[in-house]
């Protein structure tokens, strides 16, 4: 956990100095996680694979922008992957059958190193999500983890778009209060 986080931060720093060996190591240690991200959001293996490649190109090119002490290094990498996958999603032509084609990608079990590092934060968000109605908490998770838009969430939860917006905004208000406490 601690040392692991430090090692990944170090690998990113070395990538910024154009160390290819460090980049290879970084890929070896993090590609399964980031592929998990692109696959879960894009729900298409070919697209997720292509996205993964783009993500590592960005990581190599932008490694110098990682600021140690801000985001944890793995969160930074996940954010690069997640944002890229969301960009791909947004650029897609709307397809009505997306949801039916969705792969069933299971939630990860607790990943020991991350879990240990993030236990506090994780417990906190779980606790705060737990205070929302179950379907609303699901909607928030669906947005973050699956990249569902308001529209997709409305379809999935079989409510009108505006209702979904209202639900989610209320939930976000409560979440913010709880997370700031």
């Amino acid at each position: 956990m601690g040392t692991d986080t430090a090692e990944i931060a170090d690998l990113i720093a070395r990538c910024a100095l154009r160390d290819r060996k460090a980049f290879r190591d970084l890929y070896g240690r993090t590609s399964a996680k980031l592929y998990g991200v692109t696959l879960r959001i894009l729900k298409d293996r070919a697209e997720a694979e292509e996205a993964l490649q783009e993500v590592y190109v960005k990581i190599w090119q932008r490694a110098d922008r990682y600021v140690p002490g801000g985001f944890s290094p793995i969160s930074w990498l996940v954010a690069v992957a997640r944002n890229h996958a969301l960009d791909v999603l947004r650029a897609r032509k709307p397809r009505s059958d997306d949801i039916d084609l969705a792969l069933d990608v299971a939630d990860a079990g607790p990943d020991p190193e991350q879990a240990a590092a993030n236990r506090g934060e994780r417990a906190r968000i779980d606790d705060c999500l737990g205070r929302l109605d179950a379907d609303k908490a699901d909607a928030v998770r669906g947005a973050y983890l699956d990249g569902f838009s308001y529209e997709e969430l409305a379809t999935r939860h079989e409510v009108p778009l505006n209702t979904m917006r209202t639900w989610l905004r209320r939930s976000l208000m409560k979440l913010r209060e709880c997370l700031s406490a």
Partner: protein
Amino acid sequence: MSDDADISGGSEDRFLAAEYALGLLTPAEHATVAARLRTDAALRADLSFWRGRLAALDTQFAETPAPAAVWPELERRLFADGKRAGWWNSLALWRGVSAAALAVAVIAIGVNLATPRPDPNAFAAQLVAALSAQGSNVSVVALYNATTGQVRLTTISGSAIPDKDYELWAIEGSNPPKSMGVIPVGRSMDVKVSPDILAGFGPGTTLAISLEPKGGSKTGAPTGPVVAAGKAAQI
């Protein structure tokens, strides 16, 4: 009910950062917020609050081994100029670096000749190495003086990196690098050459500088990238 109407509208500032972080916005809205973030510090702060908190959910992304084709393709795309396993293991790189460093060495010699020398005999026993590497701005000239048994390091360019140290190494042929200690970059310094390094020290010895954790490599071998290297030559 009226409360619901209040917050169901198209865009509502107090939710923007959260919606942006979650990726709920339409492509057009998303682009608008992205543009606003450049100038709106409050919105940026709000966004960083949400990103930080939501990142706790990252553990839920299941690790899935990446398809085997991705890495070779990445390597091809990013490093099309040949496949090097790593900086450190590449002999070709060392040779290339030394060749490229020649130009700098010439300058170094010029500078060296210009400085007054107390003992002309010492001149013959001097070695110079210009240390640099492609993609790195660290460049150092090393001058070995047999009379004093010291290497004088002069930084031509490069600067210190927070929480990191530069470490100097001597490499004889294909032997593993031997540490000559942590060195400052940005000012001159004399490094005493230890007897075990001195035994094989001479023209052709490669001097290299790697970036290491504070205090230097813990393993006795370089662990960080090589930021400069060059072969010693007699002058």
